[in-house]
Structures are given as structure tokens and as C-alpha cells.
């Protein structure tokens, strides 16, 4: 691809994301910082990755890599150009055939001082947070220096509910929570439970800013 096209496409995509869903960042438990982090977020729609990337400050965005499915995003030259070229995505095989290679690739990003965005539910939800898959646990054990930052994506499931081809523009806020503190000797199930609870607790907004308490009541 021509060198100038990808930055232009990236700005276009991020600008369009902001025009549609606002993509406001709310740093509630930590400040933006250039340290290796695993941002783990609830998976609500196809726009999740773009929305989290748009919410990050530009200098952090350049050093953050969303983890995306190889079978979909590697499927065509265009998709690969968008995912890898524009959004720095790390494409991983999720069939389970190459688990070791996937773990090596993700660990390499963190060890180089950069960050990852993961969606540990593995599948898109309907506004509730599903149980986490175990990848987050293994990655956290492999790279203990990386901060585990929960990111609750608010409202995005209302923008593009599962099975709906149409999109309704609503203001979505990314709530960045406090990094998960390490606990010695914690087993896999307990860790995944604790990580999920950290994410769920972010869904109840503390500050009264542009929060959506009323809308959440009957939105399900």
C-alpha cells in the first residue's frame, strides 16, 4: 500500500468512529501512561477495537496493539491492511492449533514495552459481561510486569446490537479502571473471576458526568 494511504485511512476511521460514537475516555482508576499494559475490555460490537483506540491519546495509540482474529482479519488483503496497517493489530490464530505461538507473539509485544488490547470474553455480548477465557490468565503469568487495566465499554452494545446490521449513533464512554493488583498463589478460576469483577464494577459509574444511568435501566 502507498505509504500515505494508511495514516489517512487511520485518521478517517478514527474520525468516523468519534462522529458515530464519541469514544470518550474516562480515566477512573489510572492515568494514561506509556508502560506495558494489557487493556482488557468487554466485547460489545464490531466497533469495540476502534472505539478503544480512538479513546487512547495518540502517543499511546501508536504503541498499543489490539489482538484480533486471524481467520477474519487476515481473510483478505483489505482487511489485513485495515487491521495491521491502520490499527497495529496483532493477528492471532484462535483455532487453538498454535496456542504457544500466539502466547509468544503477545508476550513479545509486552516485553518490548508496548501494550495490548484484549477481549477476554471471546465473543460479543448483549451488554452483560460473559465469563472470561483463560488466555488473559496465562499471559498475565507469562509477563507479570505488564499492568492489567480493565476497560469498560459503555453503551456500545446499544449502538450495534448483535444481529442488527444497522448502527445507531450514541455517545460511548471507555472507563479505564485501576490495574489489577497481583495476588500470590491465585488459581486460574479465581484470577479470571477477579478480573471479570473488576470490569463489571466499572459499569456502575461513580462520577455524575455524562453517565447514562437512566438509559441502562431498560436497555437490556
Amino acid at each position, binding site marked *: 500500500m502507498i505509504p500515505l494511504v494508511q495514516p489517512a485511512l487511520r485518521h478517517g476511521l478514527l474520525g468516523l468512529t468519534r462522529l458515530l460514537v464519541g469514544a470518550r475516555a474516562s480515566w477512573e482508576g489510572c492515568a494514561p501512561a506509556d508502560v506495558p499494559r494489557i487493556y482488557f475490555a468487554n466485547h460489545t460490537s464490531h466497533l469495540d477495537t476502534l472505539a478503544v483506540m480512538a479513546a487512547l491519546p495518540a502517543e499511546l495509540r501508536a504503541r498499543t496493539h489490539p489482538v484480533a482474529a486471524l481467520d477474519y482479519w487476515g481473510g483478505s488483503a483489505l482487511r489485513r491492511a485495515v487491521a495491521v496497517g491502520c490499527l497495529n493489530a496483532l493477528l492471532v490464530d484462535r483455532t487453538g492449533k498454535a496456542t504457544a505461538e500466539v502466547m509468544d507473539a503477545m508476550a513479545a509485544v509486552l516485553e518490548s514495552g508496548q501494550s495490548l488490547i484484549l477481549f477476554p470474553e471471546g465473543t460479543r455480548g448483549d451488554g452483560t459481561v460473559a465469563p472470561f477465557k483463560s488466555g488473559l490468565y496465562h499471559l498475565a503469568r507469562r509477563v507479570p510486569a505488564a499492568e492489567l487495566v480493565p476497560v469498560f465499554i459503555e453503551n456500545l452494545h446499544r449502538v450495534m446490537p448483535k444481529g442488527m446490521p444497522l448502527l*445507531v449513533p450514541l*455517545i460511548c464512554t471507555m472507563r479505564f479502571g485501576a490495574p489489577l493488583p497481583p495476588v500470590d498463589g491465585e488459581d486460574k478460576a479465581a484470577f479470571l473471576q477477579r478480573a471479570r469483577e473488576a470490569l463489571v464494577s466499572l459499569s456502575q459509574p461513580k462520577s455524575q*458526568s*455524562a453517565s447514562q444511568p*437512566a*438509559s441502562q435501566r431498560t436497555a437490556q
Partner: protein
Amino acid sequence: MSIVTNTDPLFLWLAGGTLALLTVATVIGAVLARRVQTPAGRDTVRNLNARIRSWWVMVALFAAAMLLGSVVTLVLFALLSYLALREFITLTPTRRGDHAGLFLSFFVVVPLQYWLIGIGWYGLFSIFIPVYVFMALPSLSVLGADTTDFLTRTAKAQWGLMLAVYCTSHAPALLWLDIPGYRLPSALLLLYLMTVAQLSDVFQYVFGKLWGKTRLSPGISPSKTVEGLVGGGLTAVAIGTGLHVITPFSPLQAAGMSLVIVTAGFFGGFVLSAMKRDLGVKDWGTLIEGHGGVLDRLDSVVFSAPLFFHLTRYWFT
């Protein structure tokens, strides 16, 4: 229809007056920031200076759109309607069955409403949303076969369209009014409406902060005071009367029009505040630093634009 008449003295007066007002506000803000002592005062001054900074941006955007012509102005207002509707629907409970109707509201109704203004089809512009869209939306929702909160959902979506799109679109529609004997560009009518409505808000804030004692309605809008309303409203009417030179109105007519804009603007802000209290939020959004969302800044225009448009159209065209 653009008001680029470059060295026209009227244009220089308007531009100079606006710049002078913003500069005075900026200087006062800077002086207050140095003098303020208490923590509460510091918060107020910080918010005041954020508001003033945002005013520079809003005035620059509005001026640029007007100078670039009526189509650009129309596009700016269409974008404001889209953003205001997004704020409204974000805070409103919706269900799966509303999805198709909401999609159409954002991506079909908003552009169509402004397109009807642009092609000058007044007859359809004035009934498109309240007749056709208001029947189409519940018809689409009812196909979802979900009766939970059906009346509430329908009413809220319709109110959102009414305020954010239908009412707001009457402001740029002023540019398409053809007033016999009015030699100035009709963009000045839009400028008149926006100036009187927004200065009324600004002076109500200033009078309220300086001399406000009697709370008007603490349960709905804690910052509104009787002193602010009377002082700010009368100042805005006085300015609106003086600005009759840019309108087809006589000074007395201009005073009457300003009084309508100020009164409607007050109730617009008041009604939208009551809605915010009902929804449990302080502001409609966060897009405009110091002010809140687009609807927080447009709330006074929302009610005054259709009234000003129809009074002008009925008596002067």
C-alpha cells in the same frame, strides 16, 4: 447570500463588536483567575474561563460557516442537530425494536429535513417531522412486537427529534426567507436570533453570578435566579433593539421580537433542565468544554427559533 461584503461598515461593526466582547470577557477572566482566593471561587472562575475559551471556538465556527455561505451554514446546523439528537437518545432508554426507527432518524430524517430547507420546499419542511416521521417511527417500532414502555419510548424519540432536529432547523431556515424591501443578506436574521438568544443566556449568567439572590427554582435549575433572569433578559432585549439596523424591523418591532426570543429562550432552557433532572444528569454531554453538550448550548435556541421564524415569516414576507 454570503455576508462577505468585506469592507462594508456594518460588517466591520459586527465583527469588531463581537471581537471586543470576547476580548473583554477574556481579560476579565484572566484578572479574576489571579484574584480569586476561595476553592469554590476558583472552581467558578475555572469554569468561566473554560466557557470563554469555548465561546471563541463557537463564534469562530459560526462566523466561518456564515462567511462561507448558506449551504455551509445549513450543513453546520445539520451536524449540530445530529450531535444534539445523539446526546438526547444516549440518555433515553431504547430497546431492540426501536433500532430501525432510530437509524432512520439519524441518517435519513436529519439530512432530509435540512435538504428540504436547502431546496426551499417550505410546505414539506414544516410538516415532514410532525406528520410523516411521527407516524412512521411508532409504525416501525410496533413491528418489533415489544410493548414494554411503548408509549414512553415513542414519546421520547419523538421529543428528541422535535427539539434536536425540527425546532433547531428553523434557525438556518431564516436564510431562505424572502423579505420584500430587506436589502441586507438574510444571514443577518440568523445572526440576530443567535446573538439575542445567546447573549440573553450570557447576561443571565453574569447578572445571576453578580447580583443573584432569589433562586427561581432550585429543584430544576439551581443556577437560575430572578435577578439574573430580569437583568440578563432586559439587557438582551436592549441589545436586540439596538441591532434593529441589521433586521427588517423597526426599533419597536425589534424590541418585541427580542422579548419573544428571550422569553422562549428562557423556557427552552428551563424545560430542558427539567428533562435533565428527570434523566438524572447534570449536562447533556461533554463536547463543549465548560458548557456541557451541544443541547446545553442550544437549549434557548430550540424554543426561540421556530417562534422567531414564524413571526418573521407571517408579518414580513
